[in-house]
């Protein structure tokens, strides 16, 4: 997520001599990435990317805390002016679990980890004071009035969303927090009627009347309006999984929900509540009339992580002095205890959703120290054996790809998925294919079990773009299996719009390249003037030989004889070849030409131990009838 804050706002928490450009440069290297700075009147607006694990830093104060740790590493002065998270704690005497002014019933403790509410009276609604108006405007948040603006203002300043209700619009002044039932409805602040998927965190004031879609958006009929006199300040930490689910299922996303869905820490609630109360009193002259209602059954238990200085240095690949490591961690709010090499670190509550193991601490040390300060050094060389079957796949793919390219073919890579229509056109049964449940388009719904449908489409799509098309693809097909992952098998698909013998010759070239002496057994299909075939890759690997069958050279004569045959079903090339091969003197046959039904072949006769005469060769040739 991205947040926007302003430079002057940041300076309320940070004492620094760094310029906005320096802040952008140094923070981006060691912490949150500041994607842009925009000058606005006398201020600068930072647009900052917050990674999903660092929601604790998604606020003016959070950025100030990062800056106070990072900027001194670049020789800049930077200190926190105040730390609200440690400076502001509830006055215990004011805290109660319940208050007759507002009856609270939380039906399931799993919905919320901390619930805080306060009631104010004599609220005087008017526009917010100028600094709040200016800052909210600068960061692109709509201003409403002095009460609603406080909730937006503090969400950006402290990273804790707040909601405000009109106290008098809550029936019987009671709040029942529960899970919604499927189909329940609520009209939210933006005047939309939302039908709930069920299982959402909601608040009901009386039976079947919802006043809040918690963590996402408040209800319209309990919202602050021009007649509001009494206000409920509402500061909570919800179950993040539930919030995210409601976000997804309803499609409603608000800035507040992007905070809640990442999980907020309960301790931040105290500082936010105290500062919000002060602002309500100051900006609207209101009076607090309730106690601080605080329901917080499972108090934060600090996590202690044990690590060692040597482990930290070992993973980073550098030797950092202990003092440096400790000062980095302490600046970030961690408490440390060092005993010789071992280091115990207490994780502050703000980092409870992010720091769990020693590697998390190493990340903190390394990034503040500066990744740019870590040397660059290749690991030591070593030998790892590549499995033969994997090696073969890549070696043979390369060989065949290069061969086909040099024969003038163009390699194509298609999506692994095809449409139902493509399958049916080739009489392939869609049921025998794996299907995607959430395909973006019917064009890519089924996983291929053959490369042919895609190649046919390629040739058709290219009609008119080039006269002669010769395409090939080497890719996996996916053959479904019962209750298991599919068989992923490599195939070579070749398609041309030329002629049968052209494609056959291409396949024969592959055979020759791999020293395969078998006859081509692949079926060449013809459809709409497209010639197409598919070769099993593993079969080729199996049949291939690394070395051709070598025949020793001999000095004896070779007699070449041409003969023309009338071809027909009883005298095909294959039949003639079979007959010719009966001769012990035959070395090879060459196809010369085909004119109408007349085929001319050239026969090479010789003997490896003596010279033969032309007469002998002619005798051999005559045997072919």
């Amino acid at each position, binding site marked *: 997520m991205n947040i926007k804050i302003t430079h002057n706002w940041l300076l309320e928490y940070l004492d620094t001599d760094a310029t906005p450009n320096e802040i952008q440069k140094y923070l981006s290297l060691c912490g949150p990435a500041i994607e842009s700075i925009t000058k606005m009147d006398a201020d600068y607006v930072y647009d900052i990317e917050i990674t999903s694990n660092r929601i604790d830093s998604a606020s003016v104060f959070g950025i100030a805390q990062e800056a106070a740790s990072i900027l001194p590493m670049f020789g800049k002065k930077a200190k926190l002016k105040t730390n609200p998270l440690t400076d502001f704690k509830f006055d215990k005497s004011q805290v109660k679990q319940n208050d007759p002014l507002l009856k609270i019933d939380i039906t399931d403790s799993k919905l919320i980890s901390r619930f805080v509410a306060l009631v104010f009276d004599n609220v005087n609604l008017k526009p917010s004071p100028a600094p709040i108006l200016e800052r909210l405007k600068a960061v692109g948040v709509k201003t409403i009035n002095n009460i609603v603006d406080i909730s937006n203002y503090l969400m950006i300043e402290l990273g804790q969303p707040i909601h405000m209700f009109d106290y008098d619009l809550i029936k019987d002044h009671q709040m029942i927090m529960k899970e919604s039932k499927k189909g329940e409805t609520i009209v939210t602040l933006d005047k939309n009627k939302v039908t709930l998927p069920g299982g959402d965190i909601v608040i009901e004031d009386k039976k079947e009347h919802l006043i809040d879609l918690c963590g996402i958006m408040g209800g319209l009929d309990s919202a602050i309006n021009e007649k509001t006199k009494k206000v409920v300040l509402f500061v909570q930490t919800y179950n993040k999984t539930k919030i995210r689910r409601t976000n997804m299922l309803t499609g409603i996303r608000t800035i507040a929900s992007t905070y809640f869905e990442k999980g907020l820490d309960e301790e931040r609630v105290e500082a936010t509540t105290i500062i919000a109360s002060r602002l309500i009193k100051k900006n609207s002259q209101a009076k607090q009339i309730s106690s601080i209602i605080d329901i917080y059954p499972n108090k934060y238990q600090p996590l202690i992580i044990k690590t060692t200085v040597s482990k930290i240095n070992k993973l980073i690949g550098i030797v950092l002095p202990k003092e440096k490591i400790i000062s980095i961690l302490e600046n970030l709010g961690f408490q440390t205890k060092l005993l010789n090499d071992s280091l115990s670190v207490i994780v502050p509550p703000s980092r409870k959703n992010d720091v769990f193991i020693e590697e998390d601490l190493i990340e903190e040390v390394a990034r503040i120290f500066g990744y740019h300060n870590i040397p660059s050094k290749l690991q030591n060389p070593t030998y*790892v054996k590549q499995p033969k079957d994997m090696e073969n796949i890549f070696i043979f793919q390369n060989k065949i790809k290069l061969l086909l390219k040099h024969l003038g073919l163009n390699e194509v890579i298609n999506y692994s998925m095809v449409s139902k229509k493509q399958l049916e056109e080739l009489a392939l049964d869609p049921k025998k294919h794996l299907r995607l449940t959430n395909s973006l388009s019917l064009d890519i719904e089924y996983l291929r079990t053959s490369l042919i449908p895609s190649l046919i489409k390629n040739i058709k799509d290219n009609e008119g773009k080039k006269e002669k098309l010769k395409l090939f693809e080497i890719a996996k097909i996916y053959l479904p299996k019962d209750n298991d992952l599919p068989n992923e098998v490599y195939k070579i698909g070749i398609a041309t719009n030329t002629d049968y013998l052209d494609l056959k010759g291409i396949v024969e070239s592959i055979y020759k390249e791999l020293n395969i002496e078998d006859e081509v057994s692949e079926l060449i299909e013809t459809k709409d003037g497209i010639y197409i075939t598919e070769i099993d890759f593993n079969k080729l690997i199996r049949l291939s030989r690394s070395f051709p069958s070598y025949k020793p050279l001999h000095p004896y004569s070779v007699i070449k004889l041409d003969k023309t045959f009338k071809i027909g079903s009883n005298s095909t090339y294959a039949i003639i070849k079979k007959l010719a091969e009966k001769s012990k003197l035959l070395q090879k046959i060459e196809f010369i030409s085909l004119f109408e039904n007349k085929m001319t072949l050239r026969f090479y006769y010789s003997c490896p131990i003596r010279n033969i005469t032309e007469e002998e060769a002619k005798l051999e040739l005559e045997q072919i009838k």
Partner: protein
Amino acid sequence: MIDIDKLKQQFNNELTHTQNIDQLEIKYLGRNGIINDLLKNIKNIPNEQKKEYGQKINLFKNTVKQEIDKNIKIFNKAKDSKNFIDNTIPGKTYPKGSLHIISLAIEEITKIFENIDFIRVSYPEVDWEYQAFESLNIPKNHPARDDVETSFIDSPAHIKFGKMVLTPHTSNGQNREMKRVKTPPIRMINISKCYRPNWDATHTPMFHQFEGLCVDTDITIANLKGTLDYFAENYFGEGTKTRLRPHHFQFTEPSFEVDISCSVCKGEGQVNSKKCKVCKSGWLELGGCGMVHPNVLKEGGVDHKKFSGWAFGFGIERVIMMKYGLDDIRNYYSGDIRFLEQF
């Protein structure tokens, strides 16, 4: 004794005036030519001078040869004016096919990593949720597992391994490689098709990633930096720099995003004091990487106390775009011959 210098002079003179270089060649270099006569004459030279005599003649012979060869070319050209050959006509056409731009990049990347001991592997493209997520420390309910991020297969779920998915990244190979190798060292480069339900100007529902995984005793962030620098220099060109920025991924800790310096502005962000149009800030984002999370090592059966590792996963389409500026990736898989035949 014969005067070689005089002969040289005579030859040069004839060379400038001759109309027939072939005749000149026969006169000097022919079987009964001047030079052979001189050599035959060697028997009449006193023994103590024979060596010097022979050397002189040979030197002269070489000079004549060179000069004649040089002039034959000039002569032939002149002759052609009568029997004209237009050497600007294209030569005989031989077929020129093409490999897919992705294939070319895969080969290049494989070679770069083979040189530092990495082996290329091949793992399933259709895999269980366990391989794609749990084994990578990505728990249930994590956003990456939503059906807007991952393509699911309509097939019964496995009791232990969950649903069948099209791998949204090449990281499913991490756990498989750890289990195959059993005890490190591991030096894996996994290049494969990946799938996500995302289809717009800059995304295709199928794309390619290459994943590096290195596990050994004492693997450090410095080693990851070393490898990234090595790759950047070899793939993008000498002088290319890398930088790491903090990031977050479930399967690495610490996690980084790596940028490379822009080749247009050399990392300055400015060309002639104007903002660089290619990168805007001097750097281009390459992808994610980090130190392998101990949970990922554990899940792969690797002792995380003894071994550490780094991993990265980058998009092939992205590196091609960064290197050659080819940014309409939808053409890659359209099968359009006008695109294919250019490579």
